[in-house]
């Protein structure tokens, strides 16, 4: 059965909660994509080791992104694969970028931490904690001026809650009634630092309320709750009342692929991984009468999709050396002179 057939079958199945099933499907895509990224790394085929997987955080990406509209823009942190995918990214181009290949979204120059597609409103993933936050204030300003009806959403981790730039940005968004939403994916850790080791003020949304934004914290276990909450906040943002949403979840694995999380206990991890938004959604769908078999078919088709993404990435070429100076500046602008050319010029003179 292909995807269209599955969809058709369910339209005819009265008991199917098609919204939940769609959210499930999207979360499964994120999960499987991330698992494949992990495999790419193990096989030595990713560019570098700085791969931050969002396994365990799928409901935040999918819940919020499904409350966004075409034309909305967003920025993400370094753990943003899932968010990007949920906003419609092509997994082939993502995987190629993560592998540092020319066919990737950023021609192999950015990699996992700097992936983006401006066409999808992705104003950029960021390797600087908090670095992408203020851009949504600017995007919100532009949307307001242009009366586009779009909002701009900043996604970041709990670690960024202790960066001053977040407060400067939220303050301006509130002051100017901008169509902006700040989304903190609180996976409990910034590298090895648990949230309560980073702040006493762990009711994160209260900080936004203090600055005049809507502020809500939500448990990320149930993607439908996340989606509904995000919907309220994006609706408000769209009419000039900016918001803040903290989604609490658990980072299932290490900070990056090399990190084995020695700073937390196995029991804690086992407990944390029980808070699995993908399985939770799956169980709920099954309770509503959809069979395991149907869901397995969905999972399998996603698995195939991501396998082709891996194949695409591996069979692509890295960017050629000749592309080194491309895009340092705009098209038709003078390019920097390569060191070697310069040396040749100087030494030829003699």
């Amino acid at each position: 059965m292909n995807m269209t057939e599955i969809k058709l079958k369910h339209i005819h199945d009265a008991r199917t909660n098609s919204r939940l099933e769609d959210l499930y499907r999207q979360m499964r895509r994120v999960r499987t994509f991330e698992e494949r990224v992990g495999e790419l790394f193990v096989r030595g085929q990713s560019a570098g080791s700085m791969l931050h997987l969002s396994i365990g955080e799928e409901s935040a990406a999918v819940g919020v992104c499904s409350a966004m509209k075409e034309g909305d823009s967003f920025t993400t942190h370094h753990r943003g694969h899932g968010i990007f995918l949920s906003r419609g990214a092509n997994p082939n181009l993502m995987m190629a970028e993560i592998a540092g290949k020319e066919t990737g979204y950023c021609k192999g120059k950015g990699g996992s931490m700097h992936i983006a597609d401006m066409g999808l409103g992705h104003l950029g993933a960021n390797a600087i904690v908090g670095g992408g936050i203020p851009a949504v204030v600017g995007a919100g300003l532009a949307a307001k001026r242009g009366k586009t009806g779009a909002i701009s959403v900043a996604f970041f981790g709990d670690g960024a809650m202790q960066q001053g730039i977040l407060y400067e940005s939220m303050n301006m968004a509130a002051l100017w009634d901008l169509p902006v939403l700040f989304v903190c994916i609180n996976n409990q850790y910034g590298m090895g630092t648990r949230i309560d080791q980073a702040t006493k003020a762990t009711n994160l949304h209260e900080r936004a309320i203090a600055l005049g934004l809507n502020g809500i914290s939500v448990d990320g276990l149930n993607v439908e709750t996340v989606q509904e909450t995000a919907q309220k906040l994006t609706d408000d943002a769209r009419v000039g009342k900016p918001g803040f949403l903290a989604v609490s979840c658990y980072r299932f694995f290490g900070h990056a692929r090399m990190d084995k999380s020695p700073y937390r206990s196995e029991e804690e991890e086992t407990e944390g991984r029980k808070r699995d938004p993908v399985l939770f959604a799956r169980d709920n769908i099954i309770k509503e009468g959809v069979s395991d078999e149907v869901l397995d078919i969905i999972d399998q088709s996603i698995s195939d999709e991501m396998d082709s993404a891996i194949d695409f990435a591996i069979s692509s070429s890295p960017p050629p050396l000749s592309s080194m100076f491309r895009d340092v500046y705009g098209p038709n602008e003078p390019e920097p002179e390569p060191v070697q050319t310069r040396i040749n010029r100087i030494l030829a003179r003699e």
Partner: protein
Amino acid sequence: MVELTYRDALRQALYDAMIEDESIFIIGEEVGRYGGAYGVTKGLIDKFGPERLLDTPISEPAIIGTAIGAAMSGLRPVAELMYVDFIGMTMDQLGNQAAKIRYMFGGQIGVPLVLRTQGGAGRSAGAQHSQSLEAFIMHTPGLRLAMPATVSDAYHLLRQSLTKPDPVVFIEHKSLYSLKEDVDLSIEPLPWGKAAVRRHGSDIVIVTYSRQLQFVMQAAQALSKQNIEATVIDLRTLNPLDFDTIRKEVEKVGKVLVVSEAVLTSGVASELSARISEECFDYLTDPVVRVAGEDCPISVSADLEAGSIPSPKVIEETAKRLVM
């Protein structure tokens, strides 16, 4: 002699200094329980406890600012900035505060902090985690700047930094952490601010620092097989800058290559080249040539990354052309 890595040597320096001087403490992200993003401070919390290994939130400007206040209040902080790429976030605290406090306040007080950080390419860490930003520091009077290239210097320069009256920015190289050497740390080190002549030769002088020393030494060996002998100067500290050693060697040879990983334009290599050209003009037989990083950001893709910084081959070829 013991075999140590660059990383071990840094940890040993911190350990020894903290034993000797109770006012020293370490402050930064993941320095305590985690042991540092690159493992430099691993285990120190077991010995010195959380009071002297302060894990902080991700708040770079406040980390450096806190270190400044502590340094002005009788403590000796070692603040760790996980990547030198984040230095821009701290630049007000570093450039407007730490660097100027002694001067602005008429010499009443100094800011004896050490800011440990690491930079450089080599790990496909992408455009925001691979840069060499030492020129920002060197361009700011009031800040000292050390960049160790060897295991023994990792130890000694860090120990010496921790005795200085002024802020020292101490930039390690991420691709050197696993470098191993047999070292005898009891041997009297070169004084602070003195460059090391790592190799003597009569055909060309190559001036460098940090990881590029490894590449320059490889190039020098390859050149030697072709009967070209290079003098190699490792600057060790960029502020103070030991220009006397440079001058002495340049006057003997007259041909100079300056090698730096940082982007070419307005980099440390530019300053070195300008000074050599001005001060050793009468002794130069050729233009001072810079081999440096390309004037572009660093790609995550390994080939482009390697291609954007000097390689042993490019250093060798350029030296050869300069000598021939």
